[in-house]
């Protein structure tokens, strides 16, 4: 039964079969009974005929008797008598013992012996009366029809006499037979009706059973189906993955989860092909790999677990336009598993999960890891540097780089304007480089050096366009980002050490980095330098002034070591102490002005070398230079394009150091005084106006 899938319908089939069987039984009984009733009806008819025949025999006898003078009528009456007697006798015998008689149409009719009881009793009584009567009539009929025959008349009279005496009894008996037969037929008919009633009632009962019992069952199973359909729908509405079935032709089934429509931002998914779902979202190569992969899953011989690794869609990035036409990037994970129904693979179930968050999270983690690595690098750089000066460095540097950005922002169209920008930027980046070097922030110094290299390339470009500055801007952004990172790191460090930041008044800053810077540079150049500072910590300095002083000192030290101070050997040859000295003195004048004096015991400024360099770099002509005073020649050292060093290196050489000093002093509204003597050294005196002297007010 199970095999044909009718298991659950067995009860209903049995019931219907029972219904049909009942109907068929009723029909058969009906058929049989009606056949019997028809037989009974014939018998009733024949019994009725016997009544009539008994009277007709009597009538024929009397007719013969009254037709003594009409031979034809007599003969007719005798003939009729003969027929009636034969028919009566035959029928009586047939009723009594069973046998054949003829019906009204002269056809033979088979009669069964009458049932014992009333009918048979009547027949026996009739037979007893009939036998003598029949014998009498037979004797009469043997006499012919001649009335002159005395025997004839005698026999006739006997017969008439007997008949008259018994004819009413015979009629009564035949009537009794008829009634008995009618009763039997009526009984059969009512039995038939009863059988029919019972059969139909059973059939109706059966029908009602089917109607109520099985309909209830059907309704129940329908309700279960509806419930499971609803549950399926709820699952598909709520599940967090895109679920759908694929057939062998990679067509998507009619049902899929709502999430699928959200993932792909489309509704018309049912019945479309898998290819069209992912068309233009993934590469053709991935698409064809995915197709082959799914087709493999439909091959029963292939082990699903073994090919799992080949799934090309386990972490795929798609870019999909959302409802507003904006592109979204999503990472999707497709999982495919076989759906096996009765031993064959009917479908492949695809599960799509939006793993964007996980992927982004892991990327963020990666980024964070990388960031923290680079922060660690930066941190170690900062730790190695002079910690107190770091915030100042970052602030100054951001300021310088913003100035560079502002220069870039200025409109410029001509070559001259572009070149002007190159030079202005040069001074700023050189200052930044100097500060970075002095604090031992090598990564920043290197970036600045790279920046200077690029500026150098721009400076020599005869067809300089705005577009050529792009690499510079990109590098600028890079340095700014590094500074951003350093700033954040410093903020965190400040919080960690719980030291309240004091950006406005830096009390007694640590100036030891001057000596570090000097040692570092001097060592590279085979020189020995001693920095002697005085007065720097005598006053509480506002941050801005401290920063300016710091930057000026750094540039002076760099400049002195690169250009003024001789190597140890040279100094010894000149009978000088091998270790040179740079004296930095800071004081406040009575006028409130600030004075910074930087004095070195180096070679002094070689005006002849300046003159030659200035001619070489096209700053002045030879004739112009000959007319220039010592003072004017010395002033040339502040020009941005002059450097007495032949090659640029990390320490100096691009001739920008003095320009940086000039710009710084100019920015503060100060003045510079230079005094120099050959082999004795140089003294730079900077006077800064009192306006910057916030410290006095604060103090």
């Amino acid at each position, binding site marked *: 039964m199970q095999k044909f899938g009718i298991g659950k319908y067995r009860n209903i089939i049995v019931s219907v079969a029972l219904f049909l069987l009942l109907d068929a039984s009723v029909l058969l009984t009906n058929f049989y009974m009606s056949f019997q009733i028809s037989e009974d009806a014939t018998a009733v008819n024949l019994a009725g005929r016997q009544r009539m025949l008994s009277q007709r025999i009597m009538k024929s006898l009397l007719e013969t008797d009254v037709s003594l003078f009409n031979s034809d009528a007599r003969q007719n009456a005798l003939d009729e008598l003969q027929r009636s007697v034969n028919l009566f006798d035959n029928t009586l015998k047939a009723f009594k013992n069973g046998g054949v008689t003829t019906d009204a149409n002269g056809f033979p009719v088979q009669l069964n012996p009458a049932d014992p009881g009333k009918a048979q009793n009547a027949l026996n009584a009739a037979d007893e009366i009939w036998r003598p009567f029949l014998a009498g009539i037979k004797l009469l009929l043997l006499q012919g029809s001649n009335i002159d025959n005395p025997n004839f008349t005698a026999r006739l009279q006997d017969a008439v006499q007997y008949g008259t005496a018994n004819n009413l009894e015979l009629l009564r008996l035949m009537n009794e037979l008829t009634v008995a037969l009618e009763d039997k037929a009526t009984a059969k008919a009512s039995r038939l009706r009863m059988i029919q009633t019972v059969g139909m009632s059973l059939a109706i009962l059966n029908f009602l059973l089917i109607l109520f019992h099985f309909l209830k069952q059907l309704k129940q199973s329908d309700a279960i189906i509806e419930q499971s359909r609803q549950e399926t729908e709820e699952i598909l509405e709520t599940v967090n993955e895109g679920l759908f079935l694929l057939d062998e032709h990679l067509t998507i089934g009619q049902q899929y989860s709502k999430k699928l429509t959200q993932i792909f931002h489309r509704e018309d998914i049912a019945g479309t092909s898998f290819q069209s779902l992912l068309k233009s979202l993934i590469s053709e190569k991935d698409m064809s790999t995915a197709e082959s992969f799914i087709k493999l899953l439909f091959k029963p011989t292939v082990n699903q677990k073994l090919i799992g690794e080949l799934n090309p869609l386990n972490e795929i990035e798609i870019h999909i336009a959302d409802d507003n*036409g904006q*592109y979204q990037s999503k990472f999707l994970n497709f999982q495919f598993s076989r759906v096996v129904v009765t031993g064959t693979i009917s479908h492949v179930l695809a599960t799509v999960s939006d793993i964007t968050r996980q992927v982004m999270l892991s990327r963020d983690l990666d980024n964070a890891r990388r960031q923290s690595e680079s922060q660690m690098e930066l941190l170690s750089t900062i730790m190695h540097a002079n910690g107190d000066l770091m915030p100042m460095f970052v602030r100054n540097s951001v300021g310088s780089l913003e100035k560079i*950005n502002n220069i870039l922002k200025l409109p410029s*169209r001509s070559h001259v304007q572009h070149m002007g920008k190159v030079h202005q930027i040069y001074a700023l980046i050189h200052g930044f480089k100097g500060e970075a070097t002095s604090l031992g922030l090598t990564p920043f110094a290197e970036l600045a050096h790279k920046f200077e290299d690029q500026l150098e390339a721009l400076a020599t470009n005869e067809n300089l366009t705005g577009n050529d500055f*792009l690499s510079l*801007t990109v590098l600028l952004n890079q340095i700014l980002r590094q500074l951003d990172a350093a700033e954040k790191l410093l903020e965190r460090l400040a919080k960690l050490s719980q030291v309240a930041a004091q950006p406005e008044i830096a009390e007694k800053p640590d100036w030891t980095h001057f000596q570090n810077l000097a040692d570092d540079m001097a060592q590279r150049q085979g020189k020995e330098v001693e920095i002697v500072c005085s007065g720097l910590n005598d006053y509480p300095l506002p941050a801005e002034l401290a920063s300016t002083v710091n930057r000026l000192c750094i540039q002076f030290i760099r400049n002195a070591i690169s250009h003024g101070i001789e190597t140890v050997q040279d100094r010894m040859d000149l009978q000088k102490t091998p270790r040179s000295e740079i004296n930095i003195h800071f004081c406040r004048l009575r006028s409130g002005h600030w004075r910074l004096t930087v004095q070195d015991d180096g070679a002094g400024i070689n005006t002849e070398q300046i003159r030659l360099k200035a001619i070489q770099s096209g700053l002045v002509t030879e004739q112009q230079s000959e007319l220039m005073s010592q003072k004017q020649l010395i002033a040339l050292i502040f020009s941005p394009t002059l450097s007495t060093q032949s090659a640029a290196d990390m320490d100096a050489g691009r001739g920008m150091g003095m320009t940086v000093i000039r710009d710084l002093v100019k920015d503060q509204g100060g003045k510079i005084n230079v005094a120099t003597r050959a082999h004795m050294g140089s003294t730079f005196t900077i006077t800064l106006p009192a306006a910057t002297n916030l410290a006095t007010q604060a103090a």
Partner: protein
Amino acid sequence: MSEDKIQIFIDGVVRYFNHTPDKSVQVGTPYLAEKGKPMALDMTGLIGVSGPDKGCVYFSAPRVLLKHLLLSIGEPDTSEANLVDLVGEVANTIAGNARASLGKEFMISVPVVIEGTPSTLHLPKNSRAYVIPINWKSYTAAVAICLEEN
């Protein structure tokens, strides 16, 4: 954000202007916009970018430049609608150029034209945008590239 990628956007604009009768287009010195503060002129055609780089790229120009540009390409109708179309077209050219050079990975949305300053929503907050002035005749427009740093 590599220099090459930025150059592709600059080339897109230059290419557009080079198709106009007056080819005297000049690129100014690129600079950085302040974080989260977009630079914008009168009208801006903006394209959203997703994929490995996220953010937006926009072309912004003063009305007078756009009107002059329309006239120079033989369009006498300098109505607002035409100006909007023109800005959208320039943005489209930039997008097309980028798509051709950077491939499918670089997902670019349909250009949106905005009057005035683009909403800061479109701008990555943690990075500075590159602004490249585009000088045409006596006017200056700009391309801005605001892509999140990865």
